[in-house]
């Protein structure tokens, strides 16, 4: 009798370990807060694929969603691309500008990407990668949310979802300008 009860202790001992591992799903070891949060966003001025100038300075007073991407960034940039365009269409008349910055890319492939997804928001190449470096971009895609005062407020690493964009843009839009 004693032996058999002892035997059941083994499967019972497994349970807390499994629970600990399950807890692991609630955490993200890669989620490291950006030191830029709350600080003024670094100024930049680039020329879009369409040939128009775009600079952070020129967007002061608007909420900016700055998205770093590349055409070779399979699949994450492909996954989030439709959400970017949807967000732009939903928010462009509410005082939000979506800006795409294409890093370390070939122009032809980048143009094909933009055409495929029909991106209509300003999109500029960052050939020397200076903007990406100044924002501490580690990998693409990364998206920065900049408030009306020009401060970096949120950062999203990895593909952006409609919900995430909506939630954070709404929060920034509610703030007094």
């Amino acid at each position, binding site marked *: 009798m004693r032996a*058999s009860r002892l*035997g*059941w202790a083994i499967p019972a001992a*497994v349970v807390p370990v499994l629970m600990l*591992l399950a807890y692991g799903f609630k955490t993200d070891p890669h989620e490291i807060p950006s030191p830029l949060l709350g600080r003024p966003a670094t100024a930049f001025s680039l020329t879009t694929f369409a040939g128009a100038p775009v600079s952070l300075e020129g967007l002061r007073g608007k909420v900016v969603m700055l998205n770093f991407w590349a*055409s*070779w960034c399979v699949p994450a940039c*492909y996954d989030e691309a439709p959400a970017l365009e949807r967000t732009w269409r939903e928010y462009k008349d509410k005082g939000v500008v979506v800006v795409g910055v294409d890093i*370390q890319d070939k122009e032809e492939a980048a143009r094909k990407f933009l055409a495929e997804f029909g991106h209509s928001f300003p999109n500029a190449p960052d050939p020397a990668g200076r903007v*990406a470096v100044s924002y501490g971009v580690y990998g693409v895609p990364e998206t920065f949310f900049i408030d009306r005062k020009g401060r970096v407020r949120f950062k999203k690493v990895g593909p952006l979802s409609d919900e995430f964009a909506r939630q954070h843009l709404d929060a920034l839009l509610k703030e007094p300008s």
Partner: protein
Amino acid sequence: MIPELGYGATVAALVLALWGAIAAAVSARTGRAALLRSGERAAVGAWVLITACIALMLYAFLTFDFSVRYVAINTNRGTPFYYRITALWGALEGSIVLWSWMLSIYTLIVVVQYRRRQPELYPWVLAVMLGILAFFLLVMTIPAPPFERLTPIPADGRGLNPLLQDSGMITHPVALYLGFTGFTVPFAFAMAALIVGRTGEEWITITRRWTIIAWYFLALGLLIGGWWSYHVLGWGGYWAWDPVENAAFMPWLTATAFLHSVMIQERRRMLKLWNLSLIILTFGLTIFGTFLTRSGIIGSVHSFTQGSIGIFFLGFLALVLLGSFSLLASRVEHLRAEGALDSVVSRESTFLLNNLFLVAATFTVFFGTVFPLLSEAARGVKVSVGAPFFNLVNIPVFLALLFLMGVGPLIAWRRASAESLKRNFLKPVLAGLVAAAALRAVGVGNGLVLATMALVVFVAGTIALDLFRAVRARRRTGDGWGDATWGLLLRQNRRYGGFIVHLGILVVALGVAGSQAWSVQTEVTLDKGKSVELAGYHVRFDGLSASEESNHAKVTGAFTITNGRAGSDVLYPAKKFYPQDQNPIAAVDYRLGFFEDVYLVLGDFATDGSHATVKLQVNRMVSWLWLGGLVLTLGAALAILPEARRTA
């Protein structure tokens, strides 16, 4: 087209594996032979379909079919031919395909080998193996589909992770997965034995060679992983106690414990419960390893994938552990030992200690690996556990294991007399002490090296003494030295195969201790034409050159090395710039030597080539790790030779 074909083959294989598992289990219960044959045909069918998946995936890689998401992620038009093949297992989805394929092959071998020989256990073995195969095929169907379609089709793919573009990546994952999947066979036999209620030594005897094979491939995978880390990552080390390394190391430790403790069961009919627990634990740890590397719950230098796959693996892990340990608990009455421990000074107790230490090492590695999780759960603090913790707790354990390695094989079963202890161990102990004293006398002050050396000489001494006595005994039958030795190795191949494996471990141990204690490094910025000196080597910076490779740009430095003894040599460490990676990747250059390697890593440089920073390392005894791996291979090969040779 490829995505649809591949997905279809995956689903069909899943259906077949499920059907086969159910058919085999029902036939085991009812004895209906037709069902069992159907299960076997399902196993063959699943193998054919998974092979087709591999062929389709290779075809997609070779033709740059970027409509397959996995292909677009892991290759681009510049990827060399050779890495378009290894890209197959360069990421999660393809690795699971490879895993399933190996598992299906192991299943077929089991079918061929045991369908007639083990009529009672075999149906359950087949059911368990096909059930496990079905799980992996389920992973291929839902959370990690390798043939998922990508729309729109990109003009070019992202390309294989540059760190994986190395020859080590052909063999490392393959060896590791052969090891991981190999443990499915003993696990399946253990489960069958428990279900049928034949919990004696039979399942162990049948699966012994399987366990050695799996154990060997895992060891090989670990060593090749070390080699990859050493010559690709550019930090000059081979082991970092990274969670992914630990994940592969833990099942190896428990399997090592198992390989030893089964001898006690075979000989003394003890430890039945323990052995079953060890094999369940080993198999569970292989699943845990995959869970850990693929769920993203713990940070690691290895890139992790996140997604629902972790939940599948955790669910499967729970099923495996709870299911098999519950089965074990329900059979506990049958698992009583028939023998008993007679004396503390005996081979049994030495093996028990060996098991205790190996399991303790497994536990500390496990604890260190999941500690960040534990800390966050209990205190809400993110921490990471580094090499110092693992070294601190494991070095004494491994030294103790080395000592037992010398004692275990020679000490008598049941009870060792003082006389036999003296006869077997006095000379080796003295030899070990003398070796350490001699090293000390020539100025070696490092305690770890001295202790390791003493133990290594002691263990090698016991092996040499035993072999010498056995050969001398055989020579009385008239053989010469060579014939006597050779005959002995073949006739007692399991014993001497084990000894050779031990020698391999000793060589690895010397490599680890020596490289930890004696390696030196320096990092300097050199103007063109200037030199740096380290440990007798003069390294002169001769200049930089840039080149454009098929899928990356490369800046190569030329450094002339002279060490006074031989002539000069030029090394070309480089930096590779892959478009898909922000940070350049170092391409190490090195000259391997028996006692020391010269190892150069290019750091920052002036674009005009006027100066460059270089990290120069002189790594001692690292080659012994790879040599130890060769010795290990010989020993394992000898140990798995068919038993029939013993009585021939």
